């Protein structure tokens, strides 16, 4: 009895120690006011093969994918899906109008590249994505069936280093290699209506009125300004969370087997 209790305590102590070492060091809401501008790249690959790229500068240590997209000035509209976050329904005028979000034929696949690494398909909405200096956010309009192809490489879009003196109070953006016409700041505001929703058009004048309506399922939000809403909590990295869950799950399965074995022994 004492032995099994000690064993159980040992297993839980091990699990807690492992989890403690995985815990994210950053705060829940990292509104760090560190001096110096940071940069993150944005790549938008349209279905027709054309691409729009941006390098967005920001002052905070981290930025959400939604804020990066908003700061880039590219017109977009989205829809909130509970804990998933914001899904992109239409981006830079594609599709011009939509009923379903994500679309049944094609949709905007979201990718993230951390520190110049390879594109990774994002498992959460853009409002839940956390990007830092040197990261990149990618969008590619892909068919709903089949594996989503990755966007163009973000390499070279942003400067390799971020000098502290380049800090600015207002976020800035510059355009490089864009195939679409220049786009002004995005519109704000949201509403929910039924029926077909207009996608973002190529210019502010057209987009502000055209895509303020929401998808039929409701709760569609158009872009927010950079200062609105908290930056989502740092997820601690997908690998860290996965490792923590694997350790915890493995320990629990092991403990269950030990219990079952003990029950069988006591029955004999």
């Amino acid at each position: 009895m004492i032995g099994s209790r000690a064993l159980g305590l040992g297993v839980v102590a091990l699990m807690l120690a492992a989890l403690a070492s995985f815990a994210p060091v950053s705060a829940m809401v990292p509104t760090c006011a560190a001096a110096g501008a940071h940069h993150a790249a944005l790549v938008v690959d349209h279905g027709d093969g054309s691409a729009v790229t941006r390098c967005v500068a920001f002052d905070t240590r981290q930025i959400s994918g939604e804020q990066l997209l908003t700061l880039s000035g590219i017109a977009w509209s989205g829809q909130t899906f509970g804990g998933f976050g914001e899904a992109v329904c239409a981006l830079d005028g594609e599709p011009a109008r939509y009923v379903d979000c994500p679309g049944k034929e094609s949709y905007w696949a979201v990718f993230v590249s951390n520190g110049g690494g390879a594109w990774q398909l994002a498992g959460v909405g853009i409002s839940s994505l956390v990007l830092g200096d040197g990261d990149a956010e990618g969008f590619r309009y892909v068919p709903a069936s089949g594996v989503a192809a990755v966007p163009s490489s973000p390499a070279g879009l942003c400067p390799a280093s971020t000098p502290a003196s380049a800090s600015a109070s207002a976020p800035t953006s510059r355009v490089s290699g864009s195939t679409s016409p220049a786009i002004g700041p995005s519109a704000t505001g949201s509403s929910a209506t039924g029926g077909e929703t207009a996608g973002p058009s190529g210019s502010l004048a057209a987009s502000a009125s055209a895509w303020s309506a929401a998808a039929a399922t409701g709760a569609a939000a158009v872009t927010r300004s950079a200062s609105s809403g908290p930056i989502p909590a740092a997820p601690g990295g997908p690998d860290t969370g996965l490792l923590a869950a694997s350790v915890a799950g493995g320990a629990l399965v092991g403990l269950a087997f030990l219990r079952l074995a003990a029950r069988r022994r006591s029955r004999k």
Partner: protein
Amino acid sequence: MSAAGDLDGPGLAPRAWLVWSIAAVSVAVLTNNPVYRGLVALVALNVLLAWLPPGRNRKPLAIALAVAAIMAALINVLASHTGADVLLRFPEGLPLVGGPITLESLAFGGAIGLGLVAALLAVAPLSLVLEPHDVVDAMPASMERTGIAVATSMNLVSGIGRTFVSVRDAQQMRGWRPRGLRSWNEVLVPVVLTVIEDSVLLAEAMEARGFGAGRRTSYSRHAWTRWDVTVAGSAVAAAALFAVMRLAGVAMDWYPYPTLALPPIHPLLVAGSIALVLPALRRR
């Protein structure tokens, strides 16, 4: 002597069990993330294995878990035709099930089933570990009578089953055979009448034993120990952590559509799920 009501043993207070169960179910329903739901299911399984009295029939629970998981997965995979990875296609003409069967809908159905399994395992100690009177004791005083009424009505469910079998057997001995829906009247009417009669008898018996006359008394109540407080406190903290993280906008849900991807996993929420394991550290 009940498993939980033993004052001298290492038992857990019935009310601490109730708090733990409610917290575990809350965690399982606050997110549809299969990782957290799977962890809660594993935690609840460990707790159950640690506290299940020997000789207690586990078969009904196993059947309920299997049915809940399989039905949830099956319904979602057959009714939802969204997703990028098509496994097979049913003819479009088939109502509801016609169309592509996708890996994504199968995964989402599995996550729903996992949630049901986790919730069932979380409430299982209330029926498999605690005695019925312990459950009534665990209810807040204002809900005590309601709890008794609900527990009694739940007992009637199995009574209906037994009555149905006996009436059907009796009718078959008299030559009755099922011939369409109408023929079942000859079984269902006696079943309903018998169940009503049983209910009246039960109500009279309960009244004769003083039900409704005043507060229920008991020989001894389980005094809360430090262990009870620790278990209940950690369970409440785990549920509160999930609630706060959801309110803070942390991504904790998982949607496999349109393309299957790994669910987001936050180490703090993994720790919150593991915090529920405390009752498993002691055995009955």
